[in-house]
């Protein structure tokens, strides 16, 4: 475009264009001119050309926009007898307007240097004077045109219709395209000669021997072009503009502009009148713009003169002026303006968003955190404190990766259009990803790995095509040393009870009573895995990774895992603590050892003791386990500590001995244990 404004530096221009909403990605300066690379948002197809950008600048500079010469070139009516041409639009919804003109006596050749250079600077490859002229018009006023070789149009006519079953066309890029019945085709008397609004056909392409052309300048419905371009996987300069919305009032003007240039460059003359089939004229739209609305939305007052001036420069026509509002006619090229607030934006853009004053809204109510925030913070605090780092994984997976870790029949939901072959589904478990993180850390030389993740898993429910449920889970993994090896202490590897203790600490913090029961899961060590339940509800599983999988992971130490559903954790309110008076009287411990069958689980011993309901018995703890040469292989010696206390008084030795005696007696009766001295 020719910008004649003294003192307008390119950098200042670039900044202003950005502040008008036309982001400048780069400015390429040369001796004679500068090319601005603009990132035009999808709503502004009117700015995909120089005229549109010039209009924006004219409104900013408050200068009058110079319109291109849209007048029709000379035409001798007699010529039309020799060059008959007709246009029939059979699909007016898809093609509301179709203009065309025949130009004859042309010599197809290279364009003059000024045009070639101009196109090249703008990233277009010069083809020949005819195509270059249409591309010039495209860049100048934004309207895509197409030139057919008139001699190759059967019946010397254009029919705009949807494709018939089985029809196909070889497009200018040499590809054979099969057309479907929703696609709009430009046809001659017999077959398609162009894909409407996307690309011309090879057979009717102009060549060096073409003498007469039919120049098309039409307006196609955006949705139709978009559908067809998408279905065919094509995106062209033409389709890009039509699918965003070309100017329905531009076809004849653009036709005139291009015809004039072609006659000038290729030496032809117009031999037909402007054919202008306009079966579906555009309904002009008029909007009310209230000054109060401008003030409310922008948060500032804009003077009436400024509002009118801005709109006028942008091509809006002010139909009537009221005291409190304007009636504004929207120009045909502004496909983005449909409501009053769109006009408010126009005013705001040109007054300048930087002039909007900052204000702070009055708070209407206090802020409120997410109800699960405290639970999540508690979980993070406990696990961080115990040395676990929080992990976040991308939630995609592949069924193969999860197969070994399925605990139920949960079906992983497939993604219809995955990005890669390895991320085809949504995960149903956090475990494989955490193990992958362990593997990567080992690979980098980190041998002590403690990670946890709070994240969602997904599963299909009901009709496989319909429902997908999501659930929050906690995944925990640990391997390597529990105590780090160090100059003052021996190293200790993480073992099952360290890991179980982590979960016990966690649930103690969450004030939830949980139970562990032996279980077998395919991916866990059959001798060291447990189901976790809270009340009657299954919460998840915990255990050592199966030795086979540990070998496959090439992990030198045992790996411990837990996966816990957070639905019921999050559903519980984290109760505020209630104070319980401190013990005023000392507690008394009584230790004793007994030999017992190895197979008897401690939980059985504990519940047997609990059934005695000894009032003053506060705690039962294991303080030593012995198994060795003094004992038969199926036996172990267990040392337990009983703690007795009473809130009202100091217990007597006799009371404590009686209580301990009852425990010993019960264990003897129930499990046949022998007390060791």
């Amino acid at each position: 475009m020719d910008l004649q404004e003294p003192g307008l530096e390119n950098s200042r221009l670039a900044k202003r264009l950005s502040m008008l909403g036309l982001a400048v990605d780069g400015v390429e300066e040369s001796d004679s001119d500068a090319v601005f690379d603009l990132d035009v948002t999808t709503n502004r197809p009117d700015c995909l050309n120089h005229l549109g950008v010039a209009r924006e600048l004219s409104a900013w500079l408050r200068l009058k926009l110079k319109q291109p010469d849209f007048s029709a070139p000379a035409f001798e009516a007699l010529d039309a007898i020799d060059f008959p041409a007709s246009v029939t639009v059979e699909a007016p919804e898809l093609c509301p307007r179709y203009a065309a003109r025949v130009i004859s006596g042309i010599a197809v050749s290279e364009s003059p240097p000024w045009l070639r250079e101009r196109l090249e600077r703008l990233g277009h490859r010069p083809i020949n004077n005819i195509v270059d002229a249409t591309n010039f018009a495209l860049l100048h006023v934004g309207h895509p045109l197409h030139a057919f070789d008139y001699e190759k149009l059967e019946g010397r006519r254009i029919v705009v219709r949807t494709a018939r079953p089985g029809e196909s066309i070889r497009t200018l890029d040499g590809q054979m395209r099969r057309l479907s019945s929703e696609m709009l085709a430009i046809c001659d008397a017999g077959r398609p000669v162009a894909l409407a609004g996307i690309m011309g056909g090879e057979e009717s392409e102009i060549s060096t021997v073409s003498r007469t052309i039919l120049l098309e300048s039409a307006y196609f419905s955006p949705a139709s072009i978009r559908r067809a371009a998408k279905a065919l996987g094509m995106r062209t300069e033409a389709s890009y503009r039509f699918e965003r919305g070309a100017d329905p009032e531009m076809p004849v003007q653009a036709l005139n502009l291009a015809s004039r240039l072609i006659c000038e460059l290729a030496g032809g003359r117009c031999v037909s009148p402007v054919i202008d089939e306009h079966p579906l004229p555009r309904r002009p739209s008029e909007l009310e713009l209230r000054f109060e609305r401008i003030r409310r939305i922008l948060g500032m007052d804009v003077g009436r003169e400024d509002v009118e001036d801005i709109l006028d420069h942008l091509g809006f026509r002010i139909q009537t002026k009221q005291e409190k509002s304007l009636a504004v006619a929207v120009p045909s090229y502004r496909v983005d303006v449909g409501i009053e607030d769109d006009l408010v934006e126009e005013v705001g853009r040109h007054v300048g968003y930087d002039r909007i004053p900052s204000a702070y809204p009055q708070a209407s109510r206090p802020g409120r955190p997410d109800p699960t925030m405290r639970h999540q913070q508690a979980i993070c605090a406990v696990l961080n404190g115990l040395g676990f780092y929080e992990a976040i994984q991308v939630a995609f997976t592949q069924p193969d990766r999860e197969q070994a870790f399925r605990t139920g029949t949960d079906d992983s939901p497939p993604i219809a259009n995955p990005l890669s072959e390895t991320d085809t589904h949504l995960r149903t478990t956090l475990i494989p990803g955490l193990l992958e993180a362990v593997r990567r850390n080992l690979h980098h030389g980190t041998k002590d790995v403690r990670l946890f993740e709070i994240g969602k898993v997904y599963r299909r429910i009901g009709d496989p095509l319909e429902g997908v449920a999501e659930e929050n889970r906690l995944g925990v993994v640990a391997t390597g040393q529990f105590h780090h090896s160090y100059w003052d202490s021996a190293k200790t590897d993480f073992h099952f009870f360290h890991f179980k203790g982590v979960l016990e600490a966690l649930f103690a913090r969450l004030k939830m009573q949980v139970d562990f029961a032996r279980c077998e899961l395919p991916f866990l060590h059959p001798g060291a895995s447990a189901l976790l339940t809270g009340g009657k509800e299954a919460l998840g599983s915990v255990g050592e990774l199966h030795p086979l999988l540990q070998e496959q992971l090439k992990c030198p130490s045992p790996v411990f895992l837990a996966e816990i559903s957070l639905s019921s954790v999050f559903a519980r309110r984290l109760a505020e603590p209630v104070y319980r008076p401190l013990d005023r009287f000392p507690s008394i411990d009584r230790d004793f050892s007994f030999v017992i069958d190895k197979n008897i689980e401690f939980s059985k011993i504990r519940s047997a003791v609990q059934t005695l309901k000894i009032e003053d018995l506060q705690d039962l703890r294991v303080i030593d386990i012995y198994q060795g040469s003094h004992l038969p292989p199926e036996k172990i010696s267990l040392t337990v500590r009983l703690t007795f206390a009473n809130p009202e008084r100091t217990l007597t030795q006799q009371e404590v001995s009686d209580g301990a005696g009852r425990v010993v007696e019960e264990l003897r009766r129930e499990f046949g244990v022998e007390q060791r001295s």
Partner: protein
Amino acid sequence: MSVAADHPLWERFQSDLRSVDSLGSLSEVRDKYLSRQRGLLTLELKELGRLPREERPAAGQRLNQLRQRVESALGERLERLQSDERSRKIQRETVDVTMPGHHWPLGTLHPLRRLQEEMEGIFLRMGFEVVTGPEIETDYYNFEALNIPRGHPARDDQDTFYLNDSLLLRTHTSPVQIRTLEKRQPPVRMISPGRVFRRDAVDATHSPMFHQMEALAVDEGIGMGHLKGTLEAFFRQLFGEGTHVRFRPSFFPFVEPGAEADVSCIFCSGSGCRICKGTGWIEVLGAGMVHPEILKRVGCDPDRWTGFAFGIGIDRIALLRYQVDDLRLFFENDIRFLRQF
């Protein structure tokens, strides 16, 4: 004192005391002289009764003085022995305090959670409510309700993972806003943080899964000035008092007017550097006034209620805040990375 000093036992005692070198030998000496049964001094005292009556007071006084001297000498010796012992203990226990301490492993919050909590904190103080919603959404809530019908070019900008014809992985957390407005009349002031998904190939600045925090305020008389003021208050708390916010017009189907917001570069304070590509500004979010069609769709009269909305990429802010140069690090869970936060 001379009265006692010439007692023969005193000489003996002094000699014994000199050979004391431990608490044990001290205790032996004490027993030798003061033991209730056989202590030499105790025995002497017991012998007093045998002396003629008139000699007893003088001899008694003498012996008692001697005993006091013995006890006080023993006491002094004991204190010295204890103090020597303490000195030896201190000597023994002296460590090289420059050796490293025992390693107590401490984990960290993921940087994205750390930042999200910080951001939530700022909005909570400004009277916003934190609301979350499903990651699997319907086409309606993710697109249609937000003015992005099928065939809209804006769908190209947010290439979407579909599960089937009706379900998809949300491309933003705006659906939570629609769900909230459907349930509740304004005034509403909320943020919705969470994971979102877009079909972007993985590279240093793109991930198919990332995190967003969308904010919405609908009330009577809300305008773009409030949007600007809120963003300034937010970014000044996050990046520091000197931070400036600027708007550039932009387009998002769910707002009108629409804007892109830049903050003054947090590295060069606006003078131009590598991070801001010399512009002094960093693009941080999209924003605007809630489109009146959306308000109508959820039953709010746009002539009474207006609102602003904006969406912040948490991951993007984290890249800036922690000067991380590759987004992929956030999802690789490498402890060498995680331990830095």
